[in-house]
């Protein structure tokens, strides 16, 4: 009995392991954020476009919003820019930019040339705010609910499909829960 059951059990275990491990849709470098469900780290920085204008997330309390981490040195950020512009035109939630370890002038140029999908863009030149958020690459996009909790993190360039599939249902749920 065991002679047949054991190899069969081992086979099933391997199938499960490979189904998970070799799944081509799984990003092996994506890490779950320990921030999910926790309060979003507060920050007060200045606006990329206007150094005299403060940008912080305290003002957004009570609102569902998106924080998008980007930089001009980040090639995939260029790739997602069109999608962000399109999403911002749909006016679902405010999109706040976090310009990570960049140069103000370059960031300004980027927004002027390519268009600005952000309601405000915080300038995090020394990367301290990014550390608070656990950013380890760009682009990264966080979703924060009305209670100021991080409810989702997406690592990779944003697309309309990802937005529709991952963000919209969560935004709707956050609004239902927060109302």
């Amino acid at each position, binding site marked *: 009995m065991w002679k047949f059951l054991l190899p069969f059990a081992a086979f099933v275990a391997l199938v499960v392991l490979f189904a998970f491990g070799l799944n081509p849709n799984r990003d092996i470098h994506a890490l779950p954020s320990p921030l999910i469900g926790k309060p979003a780290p507060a920050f007060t920085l200045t606006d990329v476009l206007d150094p005299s204008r403060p940008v912080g997330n305290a003002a957004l309390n009570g609102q569902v919003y998106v924080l998008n981490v980007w930089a001009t040195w980040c090639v995939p950020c260029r790739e997602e820019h069109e999608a962000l512009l399109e999403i911002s035109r749909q006016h679902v939630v405010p999109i706040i930019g976090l310009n990570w370890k960049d140069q103000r002038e370059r960031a300004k140029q980027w927004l002027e040339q390519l268009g600005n999908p952000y309601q405000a863009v915080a300038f995090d030149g020394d990367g301290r705010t990014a550390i608070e*958020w656990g950013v380890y690459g760009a682009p990264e996009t966080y979703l924060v609910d009305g209670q100021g909790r991080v409810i989702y993190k997406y690592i990779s360039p944003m697309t309309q499909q990802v937005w529709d599939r991952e963000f919209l249902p969560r935004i709707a749920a956050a609004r239902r829960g927060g109302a």
Partner: protein
Amino acid sequence: MKRPARGKSALMALTLVLAGVMGSLAFAAEQAVDANGQLVDRGLQTRFERITQELRCLVCQNESIADSNADLAVDLRRQVREMLVGGKSDDAIFDFMTDRYGEFVRFNPPLEPKTLLIWGAPFIMLLLGGAIIYRVVRQRARMPLDDEPAAEPKEPV
């Protein structure tokens, strides 16, 4: 003493004090570092090296932040240095990192219910291997011996 001079020197003194305060604030972490970028306090430097060896650089994932030249690793080293100079304990620094980057940031995860499998795996393997060896040995022990032990070993078929 002339009045104008006194006023001037008071202003000078105030300026100097202010400059001193600003300077000590801005360079508190930098003063603690020598020309080679090492912490002047040897004890802190030893702790700095040990802690940064144990933290994973999340950009390269298989390098520690001590070894990596990635931008993020530079920032995280700065963070560790500042926390050490600020008198934070090793545990506080590790907690700070895991709160933001998750358990994955540690090369040497603490023993907890959820890391039990990682730490237990070698012992489970050892037990499994031991059980297999035990079975095999016992099975062989039960095999009938040759009728005539003195007989010459037979050639395997």
